[in-house]
């Protein structure tokens, strides 16, 4: 792979501004329980800059509070953990997130994770999108 400028090299690893990204829906949704998602391309396991979720179904007993832009539950509904593989083969959890909102996104602090593991609270189903480059 060749890049013409240093800027191009930086853009390869860092996510662009949000306005220059688009959402790519994950197939076979909605998702529930504990699962790992990937978006492989060549030798990269997750070729994306982040992911977004939107809660589709939730149990009636979950307390929900309206908020500006999104609503909030009275408990964590989505947990996410990124894993990276080091040069020696070790797999480490590199970034975690716990969310109690009906919709949120997570941009990867480090590029090219090995996988994104997500767990939803009981009764919660979510739709997912990758956040990828606009083009």
């Amino acid at each position, binding site marked *: 792979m060749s890049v013409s400028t240093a800027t191009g090299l930086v853009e390869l690893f860092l996510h662009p501004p949000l306005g220059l990204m688009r959402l790519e829906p994950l197939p076979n949704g909605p998702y529930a329980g504990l699962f790992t998602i990937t978006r492989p391309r060549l030798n990269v396991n997750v070729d994306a800059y982040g992911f977004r979720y939107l809660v589709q179904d939730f*149990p*009636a*007993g*979950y*307390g929900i*509070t*309206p908020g500006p832009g999104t609503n909030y539950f*009275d*408990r964590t509904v989505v947990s996410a953990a990124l894993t990276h593989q080091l040069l020696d083969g070790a797999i480490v959890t590199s970034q975690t997130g716990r969310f109690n909102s009906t919709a949120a996104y997570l941009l990867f602090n480090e590029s090219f994770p090995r996988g994104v593991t997500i767990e939803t609270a009981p009764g919660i189903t979510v739709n997912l999108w990758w956040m990828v480059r606009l083009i």
Partner: protein
Amino acid sequence: MPRGYVWGVYVADDFRARFAKLVDADDFQQFERGWTSNAVDTLEVFPQQSRPRKVYGTSATTGRKGSAVIASTSAALWNGSVREFRIMANDGTADVITVTRRVGERLRRGHL
């Protein structure tokens, strides 16, 4: 305005477990809280150390905080179709509370 307390039916999140709970008689009359008395004398009392679902809020006129126990997940205050409820303040006046937060139940006893 009624005085005292009455027994109301508290319906758990799973809709199968129902308990009898002592409720302020004024609160019982507010339909948006979801209280009924249907066959309440046949039910077990709400388990100790449990926490019923509640809505919390603040008065837009006085700033007073308030809360209300919600008897069922289908109650208007819980599903959001009504966002205000009345409380009796400690100075004897009535106040209208706007809901800002909902917190789900926690039952300490196993039930089917």
